[in-house]
């Protein structure tokens, strides 16, 4: 029972990281209607920035995280401006292929800059953990921080899109860019802001991910990126609570599958669940399907 609980907590922790990445995917998809496959690699860049800030410049972890957020935000805005904005009128396939290109570009640039030798990410949480039942149930500080970060981000985004003028403008753009422009909303600036927010979230996710799984290589962001994309689709792409739910479920399923069925097959099982969910409910768990009167 305690082992089960341990796995469950680990699953939620991993799921929280997926959820933070998935929120970035889902926001960009919601507004720009594109799948930013380079999102996972922004995570990797964020982790490297934090790694060097802490290990080479001896900054405290919080400043390392801040540096990662600032640089990833800039990176997100630059990627959007250079790679995606010129394709605003192009077919979605062209944009998708460009995103894959950006993804490989980032991975290879990272390999060139930082080599493919794994960097061992420092443990920011100093191994602090709550131990219960004679050490059979362990909740690390890292786990608690990860879950708390996910909840705070989720609440902040919900308030932002629901209550603020900029957030509402984002929702307006996500529905109808032409009509949004007629309202005086600067659509390009709104898309840029969305990329900035998504990339800042990617930086947070990168630092949390490498704190839990400390081996950092240029492809570190790739698999979590794909899984978070899966989580976003699983929960209903475009939906903020959907990204949270999808991410957490995916993390829990992955950990349980690895613990009770097979470690090798855990990824296969994760994607199998996705396929089943999409067969039954094509819009994802919380996907929007609004009935419109004409």
């Amino acid at each position, binding site marked *: 029972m305690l082992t089960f609980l341990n796995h469950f907590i680990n699953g939620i922790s991993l799921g929280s990281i997926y959820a933070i990445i998935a929120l970035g995917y889902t926001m960009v998809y919601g507004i720009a209607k594109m799948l930013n496959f380079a999102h996972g690699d922004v995570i990797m860049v964020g982790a490297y920035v934090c790694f060097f800030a802490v290990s080479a410049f001896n900054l405290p972890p919080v400043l390392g995280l801040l540096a990662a957020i600032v640089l990833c935000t800039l990176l997100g805005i630059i990627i959007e401006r250079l790679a995606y904005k010129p394709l605003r009128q192009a077919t979605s396939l062209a944009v998708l292929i460009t995103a894959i290109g950006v993804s490989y570009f980032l991975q290879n640039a990272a390999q060139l800059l930082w080599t493919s030798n794994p960097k061992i990410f420092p443990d920011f949480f100093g191994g602090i953990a709550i131990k219960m039942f004679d050490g059979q149930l362990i909740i690390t500080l890292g786990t608690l921080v990860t879950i708390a970060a996910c909840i705070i981000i989720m609440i902040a985004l919900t308030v932002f899109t629901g209550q603020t003028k900029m957030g509402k403008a984002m*929702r307006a753009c996500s*529905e*109808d860019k032409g009509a949004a*422009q007629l*309202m005086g*909303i600067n*659509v390009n600036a709104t898309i840029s802001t969305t990329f900035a927010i998504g990339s800042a979230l990617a930086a947070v996710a990168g630092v949390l991910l490498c704190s839990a799984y400390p081996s950092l290589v240029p492809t570190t962001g790739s698999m979590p990126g794909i899984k978070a994309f899966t989580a976003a689709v699983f929960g209903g792409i475009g939906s903020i609570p959907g990204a949270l739910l999808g991410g957490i479920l995916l993390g829990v399923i992955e950990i349980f599958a690895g613990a009770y069925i097979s470690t090798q097959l855990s990824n296969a099982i994760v994607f199998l669940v996705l396929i089943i969910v999409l067969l039954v409910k094509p819009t994802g768990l919380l996907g929007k399907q609004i*009935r419109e009167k004409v």
Partner: protein
Amino acid sequence: MLKVEDINVYYGSIHAIKGVSFEVHQGEIVTLIGANGAGKSTILHTVSGLLHSKTGSISFLDQDLAGIPAHKIVSKGMAHVPEGRRVFLQMTVEENLEMGAFTRPGGEVSASIADVYERFPRLKERRKQIAGTLSGGEQQMLAMGRALMSKPKLLMLDEPSMGLSPILVQQIFDIIQELHKAGTTILLVEQNAQMALSVADRAYVLESGKIVLSGTGAELAESDEIKKAYLGG
């Protein structure tokens, strides 16, 4: 107030608008009528900056609009109610109105919302509802209310009667005349030529991207050509 001179608009290789010029003076109701596909909506989209003309010029309140992006045109005093309403279906009625006031300072918004609710009491009843759940007539009212939130000097309406029952069409046209009396200049695009001509000071008839006739609303309503082509004999 609005002066459009010799605009030519293309969709790829299709020449949609061919050298169109027209004017709207302060305080007028001007209508552009014509069959489906004549280019009426394209003209409005070009005026509000969503499409661009290869030639000619568009000036509003003596200011050239060339090179001004669409999102900056609203604050100059021009609002466009697009064809098919295009309200934000997943946002509430009130949020839609807030978006209409996007370019205005936050402090003035609630007073304007109250004004719109006074003109359209139905919207007030449904203020917390998602716009997608409104009926067609209510959505048209919301689209008009949303445009009024920017306090426009020129209101451009694209097919406001489309898909509505005769009673609702009459209601919408009554509101257009009320807005006109309150001092708003109106550019009305309509397929319902009879209704449009009955309220318009002046009218232009559009055919395959060209203006083929123009005159006062009364003149055109009496013209044999118009009667044959648009008013059913």
